[in-house]
């Protein structure tokens, strides 16, 4: 309570003092603004501005710009490389596809050729076998005939010898001939 009473009592004095000071000095003066200090600060700010502009921001901006360009170039190159890769992939696909079809064609051709050769060989083998068989048959027949002829001859001789020994007479050539002929006729199968 005492505090409030004291405050109320002193408030007019305080306000009067503040108003008096405000009228005596301008706002800028009260804040200590004057030309020498102001110009000193302006000069310092301008120096900082010029120094930073020339020695800091300019070189850094140049580096940043260079880097931006390099990044843009790299991106452009990347796009080119991607396009080239895509084209190469496409081409590779085409080549593989072409190679596949060619290989397929070759395999087909080889298969067809092999089949044709096999067929030909088979036919040749068949005809050759047939020929061999025919020749064998002919030879067999010939051998059989020869054997038969030899058999007949031996048998005839045996009969003639036997007949000669049984009858005790020497058979003439005509008799032998006749006996041989009859035996041949009877043995003929």
């Amino acid at each position, binding site marked *: 309570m005492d*505090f409030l009473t*004291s*405050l109320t009592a*002193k408030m007019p004095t*305080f306000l009067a*003092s*503040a108003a008096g*000071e405000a009228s005596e*000095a301008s706002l*800028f003066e*009260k*804040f*200590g*603004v*004057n030309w*020498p*200090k*102001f*110009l*000193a*600060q*302006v000069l*310092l*700010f*301008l*120096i*900082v*501005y010029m*120094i*930073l*502009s020339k*020695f*800091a*921001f*300019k*070189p*850094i*901006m140049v*580096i*940043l710009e*260079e*880097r931006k360009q*390099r990044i843009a170039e790299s991106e452009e190159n990347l796009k080119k490389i991607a396009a080239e890769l895509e084209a190469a992939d496409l081409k590779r696909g085409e080549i593989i596809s072409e190679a596949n079809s060619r290989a397929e064609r070759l395999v087909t051709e080889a298969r067809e050729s092999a089949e044709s050769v096999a067929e030909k060989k088979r036919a040749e083998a068949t005809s050759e076998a047939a020929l061999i068989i025919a020749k064998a048959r002919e030879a067999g027949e010939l051998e059989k005939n020869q054997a038969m002829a030899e058999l007949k001859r031996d048998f005839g001789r045996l009969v003639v010898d036997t007949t000669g020994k049984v009858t005790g007479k020497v058979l003439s050539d005509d008799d032998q001939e006749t006996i041989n002929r009859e035996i041949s006729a009877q043995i003929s199968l």
Partner: protein
Amino acid sequence: MIQGGLDALILEGLNPMPLLGKVSLFAEPFAEAKIFGWLTNSVFVAAFIALLLLWAARKATRNAQRVPTGFQNFFELIVEFLYSQVEQIVGQKLAPRVFPLLATIFIYVAVANWFGLLPGIGTIGFGSEPTKAFLTLSAHDHHVVPLLRPPTADLNLTLGMAAVFMLIWVYLTVRETGVIGFIKHTFGPKGGIKGALGMVLVPIFMFVGVIEIISIALRPVSLSLRLFGNVFAGENLMHVMSGLGDKAGAVVSFLISVLLPLPTFFLELLVGGLQAMVFALLCAVYIQLSTTHEEEEDH
């Protein structure tokens, strides 16, 4: 003399502690001689920051490599971030021209704001009555002229920066739209209104133009006072927080002066960056507003 108008705001005798920390409202000169009147603790720190930025710029760009490392990488990160922000606001055409100015404003203000948070800045300085010590720590029962003061807590700097920006703004606006274009842009009918309706609305648009001119004229003041106010308030807050335990004994006072300002410290880190961004972005918006052509706005 040093406390100036600030004392008028303190109701001495009523409050157990000052309403505001005893941070001077303005930067104080090192010497009494009038010829060195400009050399204040704020100008001294601003010059130091200028040198610091020069060193940083040299470090970042000397032997700059295509593949950045270390500080160059960090600097490029800031530059790229700021450039994209500026480009989004002012457009591709103007961005390369205004970027150095806006980036300088941001970096300079941010570094100045955060520099003020370093220990000793605003607290170590020349003592005055009653201690008369040459070098003393800040206390709340006597005044200390700080050796170093955050430059953005000096209206001369914020106003100077805003004034430089406004001069460049005028140059850019006249270059982009021409004097006639600027007058038409400010006082002419907006929103594509033409014909009879446009003629009827001419007085209203003229009035709006006058308000716009007043608003433009007040921009340097609003820009500078916003930044100054925020940083100055932060300084005061830190002083008050650190001085709350001054009368509670050495150990408690020490603990309080370390622990209590800690949350405020982080708040001030945030405010410092935020105010730098606000200042730079507002400048970018002012440029965009005055240099955008009517036909561009329509699209």
